[in-house]
């Protein structure tokens, strides 16, 4: 019998969108359990019991305060074995990418990421910067899956029903890797991968003045700011704000590409956005072929005009 286990991921005591997408994926496949790991996860547990899981497993341990590969993989592997899980699932996130291959290896399980669909025990996943969809079969009894967060809507809580919870006993031993320092590097703007609206700038910005114009526009929209690889390579922005295959994948409700031509590499990181808007002076820029709405013209006049005419957020 199959048994699906979703590992919840969260930040600042809030479930991530990626976790809610994984729940939607698992719901379509059948019944499932959820596990939450950390220190002081009572609030998260109270939230997680409303998503229709058979059971919510809680691993509350001081050694799980910060994510570290060894500690978390040990705990998840222990739980998966205890409940005989056949499918271990996470939404795509930084933690999932770090931990799940380690869990897969420990469970001698085949693993697939970028999963966008499933049918008859087979999975569809994207590869080659989203330009190819592969159908794959995982031949091991236990399967580890990272679900593409952009392919599944966020699950909504069902307030009426509550899943039972169970504390998992597992002595989590400390691994060799230690956190020496951990600094919050988040700006006042929304986080790139979680934001509802993302404004991205590219090489077309050309001048520092245009960068300021773009920031004003983004701030009025309450948007996160991302950058194309060309902009990052030119030293305009740190690598952690790069959108694309080599940077971050985003899928906001609204993505506005400003002065970005739209290379395959960039498209891979934003093509799943619900609505894509492009501002570019070159009518033939590939970004327009992948956008819903576009305006052709000089961004240094278009952006200030837009900023003036939109309501503040």
């Amino acid at each position, binding site marked *: 019998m199959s048994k699906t286990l979703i590992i919840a991921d969260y*930040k600042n005591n809030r479930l991530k969108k990626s976790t809610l997408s994984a729940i939607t994926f698992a719901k379509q496949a059948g019944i499932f359990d959820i596990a939450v790991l950390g220190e002081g996860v009572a609030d998260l547990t109270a939230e997680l019991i409303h998503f229709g899981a058979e059971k919510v497993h809680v691993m509350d341990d001081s050694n799980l305060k910060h*994510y570290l*590969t*060894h500690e978390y993989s040990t705990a998840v592997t222990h739980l998966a074995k205890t409940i005989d899980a056949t499918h271990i699932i996470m939404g795509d996130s*930084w933690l999932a*990418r*770090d931990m*799940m*291959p*380690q869990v*897969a*290896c420990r469970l001698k399980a*085949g*693993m*697939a990421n*970028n999963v966008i669909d499933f049918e008859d025990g087979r999975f569809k996943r994207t*590869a*080659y*910067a*989203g*330009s*190819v*969809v*592969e*159908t*794959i*079969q*995982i*031949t091991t009894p236990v399967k580890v899956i990272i679900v593409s967060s952009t392919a599944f809507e966020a699950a909504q809580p069902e307030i009426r029903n509550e899943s039972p919870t169970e504390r998992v006993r597992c002595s989590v031993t400390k*691994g*060799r*890797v230690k*956190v*020496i320092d*951990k600094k*919050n*590097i*988040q700006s006042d703007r929304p*986080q790139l991968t979680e934001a509802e609206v993302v404004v991205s700038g590219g090489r077309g910005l050309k001048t520092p003045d245009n960068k300021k114009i773009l920031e004003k526009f983004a701030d009025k929209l309450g948007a996160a700011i991302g950058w194309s690889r060309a902009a990052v390579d030119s030293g305009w922005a740190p*690598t*952690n704000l790069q959108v694309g295959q080599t940077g971050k994948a985003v899928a906001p409700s*609204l993505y506005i590409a400003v002065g970005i031509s739209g*290379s*395959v*590499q960039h498209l891979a990181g934003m093509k799943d956005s619900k*609505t894509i808007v492009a501002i570019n002076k070159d*009518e033939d820029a590939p970004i*327009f*072929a*992948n*956008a*819903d*709405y*576009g*305006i*052709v013209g000089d961004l240094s006049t278009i952006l200030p*005009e*837009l900023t003036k*005419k*939109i309501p503040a957020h």
Partner: protein
Amino acid sequence: MENKMKTIVITVKCLPDPEILKQVKTGGTGNDVETVSYKLDTFDLVALEEALLIKEASGGEVVILSMGPSEAKKEIRSGLAMGADRGILVEYDGRIESAVFARLLKKVVEKENPDLVLMGKQSMNDEFGQTGQMLACLMGWSQVCFASEIEMANNHAIVKRESDGYLETLDVPLPAVITVGLTNHSPRYISLPGTRRAKSKPIDTFSAKDLKVGIAPWVKRIAVENPSRTSGKCELFRNVDDFLDALRTTAPDIF
């Protein structure tokens, strides 16, 4: 132990150019995909640059390990021209699946016994992003993914990485497997003297069969298709007011 480092860089594969991939054939098993054209994986190049910087700072030897057809020697040679010391090619035809790949790597890593294995965080084409973690698991070594800065200090690596909106600094006792994400170091250019020197650097070659990794692939690729593209649906404007009207219709809460 002495303070000298030995580093292995793993260049996963030679890759089809993503721009050329637009014309990938569909409907087949996808094996034709790998034959389009090739170059060193971007992420592996970044990892190689990091390895060369470690060597310059802390000494040691940089070994490039690759698996693939004999043509992959050309890619190893370009890594040697960048400054790596020697190469190892495990000849393997066809597609390598992560679980098999990690086990092949383990055999070579056991033989080489390095302090550090550096890898790209994922390949640009398959994008599985799991080989490094699996190798760490199989070796029982420390694992750190997505490093952006690596420094050596007394048999430890001090690694910086961005994790979920935080900048973490980690103390990593060696041996370890570290996968490299985006760094601030662009891969260096190949110089003419570098190319000349590379010609005399050794590349050991042996067959994957010799390594006797007796497992069948855990993940089988059954079919490949091109996803439907949504080209040509863009509504294009030249006037800001008309443009804004359209945006207000589609996203009234925002505009």
